[in-house]
Each structure stands twice: as C-alpha cells, then as structure tokens.
C-alpha cells in the first residue's frame, strides 16, 4: 500500500482537496485492497476481515474532524470481478456551517461483474448553515451487487439547533451499461417550511435511505421484509426500484432506530443473497 500526502489544504481554493482511491481485487477467493491512494483529510484504516477472506472491510476516516465550505473531496472505488468490499466510516461526519462556499464530495464506484460493494457509512450531521453537495455514481456491471445507506441529521438537535439556512444535497445514481437505473437526487434547502412541513421533514431531524440492488426483490421477499421488526417510532416505508431493487426510507428522531432497522433489512438480504450469517459491526455501536 502506498501512502502519499501532498499539500492537501489549498488556501486559494478555500478548503481541503481530499482524495481517496481504493482498488480491490480478488485473489484466490480473498478480496485484497490492492492499491490505495489518499490525500488528507481522507484516509483509510488497515483492512479488516471479521467475516473471512471473501469480504474486505475498510473503515474510512476524515482526519480534519468535519467538512467545511469550500472543501473538495473525491473518492474513487474500483472492485475487480468477484471481489467484495464493505466500506464504513469511523464516526459520524460533521457538515459544518459555511459562510457561503459549497463543500463537495464526489464518489464514484465501478463494480465489475460478480463483485459486491457495501457502502454503509455512519450518519452525517448537517449543522445549520451547512452548504454541502454529495454525488455518488455507481457503475454496476452484470451480476454486481450494491448495498448502500445514508443517514442524515439536520441540525445539532441536542442543543436545539434546526436546519434553518443552508443547502444539503445528496445524489445517488446507479448505472447499468451506461443507462441510469436509479437516480435518487435529494436536495433540502434549510428553512422553516422544509423543517416543519409534512412534505419535507415534518419536524423530524433525521432522514435515512437504504438501497439494495442485487438479485430481484420478489413480491414475496418484499412482503417478508415488510414483516421484519420496524423502527419503534418515526415514519418509514419500503418500495421497489426499477429492475427490482429495494428502497427503504425513514423519517424520525433516532439514529439508533434507523440504523437498527437498516441493519435488520441488510442482514436479512445479505443472508438471502450472499449467504452470510448476520453481522453487526462494533463500530456502529
């Protein structure tokens, strides 16, 4: 593994120019992080194998404590055929208040035939006034599987903060053969109306989405997933995407609840489609 750090804080651009490139390969049934390049403040911990060689677990870090206006972060992930990587983050990501400039994190992933990418970061906390744009584009080749979730808290609610100014955007796009099959483009402008109205946040600070895109979700499987233990509070629902992927959404007040529900769905699907016993990472709490 090479490690290069070059003057990553660009004063002229007004923020960090962080980069992460992760290249996974499968060698004799073992997934290996073959190449890793990083530029601060993005970084990864050493690979872990808590469930055997097949799946490589990678914990991503943001060493500057959070994302500020003007930051330009880029993450590129490549999975060779038959490789399997699970990516998560060491802690919640803070999206700090900006005095104007937008912070951006561009994530691209290429998942080659038969490979599995699980993108399961911990929650993000958008401070009031944050101006953040995240774009994630995933190219899924035949037989590739993608699982991903995203949990966002709007405002530091413990201190009574609401997301009254700023802009949060998160775009997730999945492609097969260059054709978009899933485009989830969320954009939430801070404001009293978006915070309170039932159309947007409905006075709930937390939203979450979980997407599973693998073998088709049959009506029977969808029915079964709907019977799994739901979050004790909050609003939530399941539906299917084009080509029979699964989408779960949550709106409520508890990151613990939403994480637990997503983990329940994820464990079930993982068992069904990847033949994996239930797993819960210690890092998720």
């Amino acid at each position, binding site marked *: 593994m090479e490690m290069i750090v070059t003057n990553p804080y660009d004063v002229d651009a007004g923020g960090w120019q962080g980069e992460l490139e992760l290249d996974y390969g499968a060698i004799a049934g073992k997934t290996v992080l073959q190449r890793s390049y990083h530029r601060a403040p993005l970084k990864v911990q050493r690979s872990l194998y808590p469930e055997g060689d097949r799946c490589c677990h990678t914990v991503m870090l943001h060493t500057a404590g959070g994302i500020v206006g003007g930051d330009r972060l880029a993450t590129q992930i490549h999975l060779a055929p038959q490789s399997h990587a699970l990516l998560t983050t060491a802690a919640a990501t803070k999206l700090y208040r900006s005095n104007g400039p937008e912070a951006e994190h561009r994530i691209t992933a290429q998942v080659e035939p038969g490979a599995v990418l699980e993108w399961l970061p911990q929650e993000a906390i958008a401070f009031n006034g944050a101006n953040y744009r995240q774009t994630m584009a995933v190219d899924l080749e035949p037989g590739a599987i993608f699982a991903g979730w995203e949990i966002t808290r709007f405002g530091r609610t413990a201190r009574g903060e609401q997301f009254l100014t700023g802009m949060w955007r998160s775009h997730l796009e999945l492609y097969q053969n260059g*054709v978009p099959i899933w*485009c*989830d483009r969320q954009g939430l402008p801070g404001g009293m109306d*978006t915070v309170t*109205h039932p*159309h*947007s946040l409905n006075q709930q600070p937390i939203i979450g989405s979980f997407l599973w895109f693998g073998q088709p979700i049959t009506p029977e499987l969808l029915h079964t997933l709907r019977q799994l233990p739901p979050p004790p509070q909050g*609003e939530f629902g399941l*539906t299917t995407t084009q080509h029979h992927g699964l989408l779960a*959404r949550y709106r409520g007040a508890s990151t613990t609840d939403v994480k637990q529900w997503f983990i329940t769905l994820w464990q079930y699907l993982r068992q069904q489609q990847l033949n994996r016993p239930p797993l819960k990472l210690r890092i998720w709490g």
Partner: protein
Amino acid sequence: MTPTADPTALLRLLQLASPTLPIGAYSYSEGLETLAATGQLTNAADLHGWLIQQLQHGTIRIDGAVLLRAYAAAQGGDWEAVIQWNQWLSASRETAELRQSSQQMGQALLKLLGDLVTPPLPWPVAELTPCNGAIAFALAAWQWQLDPQTALLGYLQSWATNLISAGVKVIPLGQTAGQRLLWGLDPHLDQARQQISQLDDHNLNSCGWGLSLASMAHETQYSRLFRS
C-alpha cells in the same frame, strides 16, 4: 377580432391539459389518499400548503424541468437525448407507485398522440417505452407547436387540477372549495414555472420525503379509491 394571437395553440393546450384527456390521471392521488387517511390532510388549507411545497421543493419541478429538456431535444431532432431524459426520469421515480403512475399516463398519452397525428411518427416509440408523462406531454406540445413555457404552465396546471380533484374526494372537500384552491394557486404555478426554467442539470434535485413515505404507505394501504 381574434381572441388570442394563436387560437389553434390555445385550443390544443386546452385539450392537452384537460382533465378529460383519457390518460388515467384521475386514478392516482400521489400520496394524498394516505395523507388523508392518516390525518395529515384534513382541510383545504392543508392541501393548499402541500401543493405549494410540491411546487417549491418537490418532484413536480423535476418533471417540469425534464419536460423543457425533452421539448428542446425534440425540436432539435435529438431523439437520443429524448430517450436519455426518459430513462433518467424513470430512474428518478422514488417509489414503484409513482413510477407506475408516471409511466402509465405517459404510455397512454404517447398512444393517443400516435392516433391523432398523421403517420409516420417522428419519435422512436419502441425506445421511448415505457414513456413517462412529462416526456409524452413535451412531445405533444412540440408536435402541436405550443410554446414550451406555455406548455410547462399547462402541465403544472393539469397536475394541480388532478391532485385537487383527488383531494376533493379523499378529504373530502366541496367542489367550490376545490375551485377556490385552484384559483388561489395561479401565482404559485407561474412562479414555479419561472423557477423550473432556471434549474440547471446538476441541480435537478428535490425534497419530498413526505410524498415518498406517503406513496410507500399507499402501496400497502388496506382500503383505497386510488390506484397503487
């Protein structure tokens, strides 16, 4: 005296935006039935507020923006771009129900257009199947030589009319209350049209968790008037 600069265009817009256009728009409530059943939509003011939020932040803006793009692409003979916008719109429908309603209306309108225009059809029907409502509306507007901004306003008005009709049934409201609601939306519809025209491609995003959740819940709602 001429009633308008282009009477034919006006008549075609009235036909295209009419609730009697047989494309099945009346069968969908876009989550309103669930919101009414769960007590989140209880009167005309609630519905007014919901529609305004949709126009300011919701997915209807994305439909409108894609309508303008499909119109411009058709005008330039760029059918590849029309096909791509249609695929993009299909991928951006948040729930199975919303995708079904968009595609069912789009398919019905595309078929109707095929029956109305003199062959051969200028657009590639097979590659546009399934066609989303906003794309079929754009093709009709272009084919019938409507001005794109007027077409967009007509699209928003017909969307609002459909949802108000749904609201009148599920809340329920009187017919006059429904008409008063539509009357009061005029400035908001035109404001939305202007904002939609300013959207650039990389800001085509929306915020409608309430709609997404209501539509998901509607897919399993026990008793319902509207399709899922």
